[in-house]
């Protein structure tokens, strides 16, 4: 069974059909990429999957159940984590604290227990901290754990954002243009981290602009153009696909 199944998804903004009848599946354990030129509807597709806004028609099923009407925090609770194109750090918090917020759904202390420091919150708090430190170490930025996240370099913020998303212990990780704003070295570095995450057994679905990253790390690629799916295949075949070449390089 596919981990994520997108079926005949449509999104209409007024007269514009931003996503037109798109269907695809994401199998457990793979890295799948959605590519396409600017305005192809990639981010719109992403926002419908994560519950940011509803689809005009069509369905998104995650782990076999439909996500219709679910808000983003509920979708996150089901085990789908995401990052943002323009990194959304929690400013005024350290890198570690940022990741600790990611442990939210894996913990449960409420207002009362937190204010009175009830004994059962002690262990939970320690677990949150330990697990978050582990993730920062996994993404190789533990030395910046106590730095204000907003003051880190862009590439490091990416890594913190990945750690924060992993803190949810997701089964599916959505990455919205993980290479946006990064130079080629940082892009290669992020690519390596994404592969490392996949090797943990976490399925990855990414939307990306940067072809080099996508071709290097993806198992399968979906190509969108003006809201429509025009190809879906392994990277080798996508590179040969005449229609994809036409879109990306222009007609001869």
């Amino acid at each position, binding site marked *: 069974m596919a981990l994520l199944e997108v079926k005949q998804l449509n999104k209409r903004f007024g007269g514009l059909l931003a996503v037109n009848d798109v269907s695809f599946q994401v199998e457990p354990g793979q890295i799948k990429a959605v590519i396409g030129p600017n305005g192809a509807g990639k981010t719109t597709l992403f926002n419908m999957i994560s519950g940011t806004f509803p689809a005009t028609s069509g369905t998104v099923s995650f782990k076999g159940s439909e996500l219709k009407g679910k808000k983003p925090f509920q979708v996150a609770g089901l085990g789908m984590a995401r990052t943002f194109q323009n990194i*959304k750090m929690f400013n*005024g918090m350290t890198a570690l*604290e940022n990741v600790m917020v990611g442990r939210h*759904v894996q913990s449960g202390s*409420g207002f009362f227990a937190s204010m009175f420091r009830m004994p059962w919150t002690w262990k939970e708090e320690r677990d949150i901290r330990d697990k978050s430190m582990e993730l920062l170490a996994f993404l190789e930025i533990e030395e910046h754990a106590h730095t204000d996240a907003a003051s880190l370099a862009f590439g490091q913020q990416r890594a913190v954002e990945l750690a924060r*998303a992993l803190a949810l212990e997701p089964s599916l990780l959505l990455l919205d243009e993980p290479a946006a704003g990064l130079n080629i070295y940082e892009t290669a570095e992020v690519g390596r981290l994404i592969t490392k995450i996949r090797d943990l057994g976490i399925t990855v679905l990414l939307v990306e602009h940067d072809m080099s990253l996508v071709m290097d790390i993806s198992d399968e690629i979906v190509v969108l153009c003006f809201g429509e799916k025009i190809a879906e295949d392994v990277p080798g075949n996508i590179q040969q696909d005449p229609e994809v070449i036409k879109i990306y390089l222009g007609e001869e």
Partner: protein
Amino acid sequence: MKKLLSILPLLAVVIGIHLLTSATDTMYYLTQMTMSAYYSLLIIGLCVLMGYAGQISLGHAGFFAIGGYLSAALTTHSLIPYQDTTLVSFLDSAGLLLSGHDLYGEALLVVAPWVACIVAVFTAAVIAVTIGIPVLKLKGHYLAMATLGFGIIIYRVALAMEYFGEADGISEVPPFVLMPGLSVSGNFSDRVQNYYIAWGLLLFGMVLLLNLIDSRVGRALRGIHGSDEAADAMGVNTARFKLQTFVLSAVFAAIAGVLLTHYNGGIGPSEAGVMKSVRYVAIVAVGGMAHLWGALLMGIVLNFLSLRGIFGSYDDAVFGLILILIMLFAPNGILSLNIRHRLKQYLGRGKQDREGEA
């Protein structure tokens, strides 16, 4: 534990102020220090709402007034005319009422202060939930305006209803006996114990809020402040957390209202006024928004000065001016102005300029 230790120096300061006023024969300052402590209780609650959860409220004087007015009305209006109704006789037999005599020797039957306190705080919480659910969907200016509207309504209700004493407010509110020998009242002989009651409560509230912001809930709140959308994606039910924080701060305000009313022996419509709400917001801003210690310090200092009448007839104008100056020159609060560092920088630059000329 670390939080408790950080409170200890403050406890020493509280005791120190008592000893100092007692040594210099200026014990009358304790009265304003007590009142400032109650106002500061509201302010630290508002600080968590504004600075940590990132939601503004220009209606917190409303919650203070709901607490104060309800408690005042319930403990002063005699129920003797309704003595025979089932409700009143039930309350009486359940021990929730107090009988006594008013100033003119007339028999009185009123709600016991602790019952009135619970009713008042609970009512404030219910009202906070009721208006919080629709209003907290708004952001920024819109939220400010909606909460301002709430504050205006409470003010006009206090001013219009006979039950709440209209323009005169409610006076002759009885002492709130916490336990034998310990009561919240403005009696001269109880001044020192009231100083410690108010400050004990404020320190306790401070410990609770310091615990809160450094916890799973606090991190979620700061996350919401940082990025609503990202917090949502982390599984934080942002709407629920905002609402709970709003209610929590309303409860702090209502408790402050109840106790200050018993301490003062009365409450008037000015406590519900919009200018009071603006003042609270200004104080949180001066303290540095996301800075509980700053809010506490400024809450005490500014309220104390205001209560001592330092600002004279320009009281509200001073708070308006403070708000403007802080927004212009120290949007992160007055404690963020590292004066010595700035002075050094300024002097250093002057020196460089001169060298440049030479």
